[in-house]
């Protein structure tokens, strides 16, 4: 209805605060409602994510932010609403198919494969790019081998990029929290995604580490043109990095706009920021 016109029209031109040109709508969430038994985690929320932007989702704990990412990943199926991706309505899709369409993510409670080394974890991110069959792999012949080497090279570039060379062969179970988060990011990047979903990538980090992480995020966004959706509680980070911010509270959307607009939104200040941030 009304919303449809609104979201389909501006497929071009959107200029960010610092003057960067942002593309058209890539992911469009329309009237999403998600319930768990009696709990309504998301109540009729609509917003979009544009090509190439950094989109932040903020809100108090339990607002439904992570659930929203899960909807995008296809892990939660909303009771109502539609997900439009690249201009087409997405039919019911399994999470792994979503991933293969180029949507990668990290998780709030680190979900690394604890029994595998860092390298293997990151290589797992590249499943989308690998296609050799069981038989070829069993014999380690032909495609299996070349493919492995090619992808290994790509993964090594990401490892270099994130500066985790020294822990390449360490089992991830032994890593400290911050490094785990970085490995998770590496795994997501390995997929060379169009859309990268980050669920609190900087939780539990100190300033220095947050700066490192910010650098990676900005670089990815800039160099690969990857679109990023980001959940974060550190307002400094959110305000500095993101192009647009959605604010959720108790499953509802209470604000959406540039960091500047959001910062001055009364509802947002009441529900989330408390005192207006410096």
């Amino acid at each position, binding site marked *: 209805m009304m919303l449809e016109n609104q979201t389909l029209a501006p497929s071009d031109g959107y200029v960010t605060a610092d003057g960067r040109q942002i593309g058209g709508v890539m992911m469009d969430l329309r009237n999403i409602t998600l319930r768990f038994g009696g709990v309504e985690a998301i109540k009729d929320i609509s917003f979009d994510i544009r090509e190439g932007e950094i989109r932040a989702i903020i809100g108090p704990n339990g607002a439904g932010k992570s659930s929203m990412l899960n909807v995008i990943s296809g892990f939660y199926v909303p009771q109502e609403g539609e997900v439009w991706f690249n201009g087409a309505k997405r039919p019911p899709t399994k999470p792994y198919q979503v991933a293969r369409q180029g949507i990668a993510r990290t998780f709030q409670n680190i979900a690394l494969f604890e029994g595998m080394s860092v390298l293997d974890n990151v290589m797992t991110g590249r499943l*989308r790019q690998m296609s050799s069959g069981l038989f070829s792999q069993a014999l380690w012949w032909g495609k299996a081998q070349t493919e492995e080497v090619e992808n290994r090279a790509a993964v090594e570039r990401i490892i270099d990029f994130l500066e985790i060379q020294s822990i390449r062969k360490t089992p991830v179970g032994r890593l400290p929290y911050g490094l785990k988060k970085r490995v998770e990011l590496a795994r997501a990047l390995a997929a060379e995604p169009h859309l990268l979903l980050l669920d609190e990538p900087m939780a539990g980090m100190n300033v220095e580490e947050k700066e490192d992480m910010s650098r990676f995020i900005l670089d990815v966004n800039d160099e690969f043109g990857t679109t990023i959706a980001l959940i974060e509680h550190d307002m400094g980070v959110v305000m500095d990095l993101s192009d647009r911010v959605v604010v959720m509270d108790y499953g509802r959307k209470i604000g959406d706009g540039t960091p500047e607009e959001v910062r001055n939104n009364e509802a947002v200040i009441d529900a989330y920021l408390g005192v207006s941030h410096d």
Partner: protein
Amino acid sequence: MFYREAGDFKTSYVADSQTFPLKLDKVGFWVTMMVAWGVIPFVITDYWASALLVPFLIYAIAAIGLNILTGYCGQVSLGTGGFMAVGAYACYKLMTSFPDVNILIHILLSGGITAAVGTAFGLPSLRIKGFYLAVATLAAQFFLVWLFNKVSWFYNYSASGQINAPERLVAGFAVTGPASPAWAQYLVCLFFVTLCALIARNLTRGSVGRSWMAIRDMDIAAEIIGVNPLRAKLSAFAVSSFFVGIAGALFFAVYLGAVEVGEAFGIQKSFLVLFMIIIGGLGSIFGSFAGAAFLVLLPVALKIVGVDWLGWPTDLVAHFQLVIVGALIMFFLIKEPHGLAHIWGLAKEKLRRWPFPY
């Protein structure tokens, strides 16, 4: 500094993903292979073959198979006995229906048939997880045993329901049947062990293996990352059953020669193979060998010590055997929950750092 990797530089990714990145390991591997292929066949006796080596090799294959499913893909299965039975009966039917085809091909085909059956029984794993799945695979175990017991077509309508392996030759030498010499039995098993270990190693270092491990470590995250759980789980079931089927075929045709399904492939077999991989080390091919060796050799060793050396009554020794095996299992788990393979790994790590402990 016996054991070092310093100075062991890799210049290509191929070199870096080798099976044995360290030189010493590689040497050890080739020495083992040479002894196994070049020395043992000439010195092996009936006793060593039937009491120790042949069962060890066959169990090692089964353990590798189960380790792929349980250790690498995280799907605990208690249906190994049943799947071994499928391999055995498939082999029997093939041997008796096509006597002119080479037995080695029959054994491979038995693996293939078992893979199909295993995949079918793996379907519930898409919904059922953890111990629930383990218990669910018991359904396969009991059903298959019942089936082979009940449907007389499987045992060619023989009066007692037993199956007997007829004599079959490879390159002019009998490898099945009572007249097959010990070395021939040993070599056939060794051939399949080498083949299976190689395949297992290749599969577990590539993308297939990584999707298995991802499913094992955190299945939901794996799916969101892009692992197709259906494909990963079913391929693990298929590959695992393939190995287990080969083990079953060898167990029947080469090792025992005559088999009654409930006795040879009962639930204890499923447990035995599971013990092997846990004691040896989940998710480790070396561990599959270590576990198989441990559980094949230990009872025999205890028997020799108790009965032959100490001269105790056999029943006391048998009871003590249970007590000791049980106590040892617990002891190992307490000392090192991740199996013999991990103990080995830790020892290497210590050696590497020697003489500086940290």
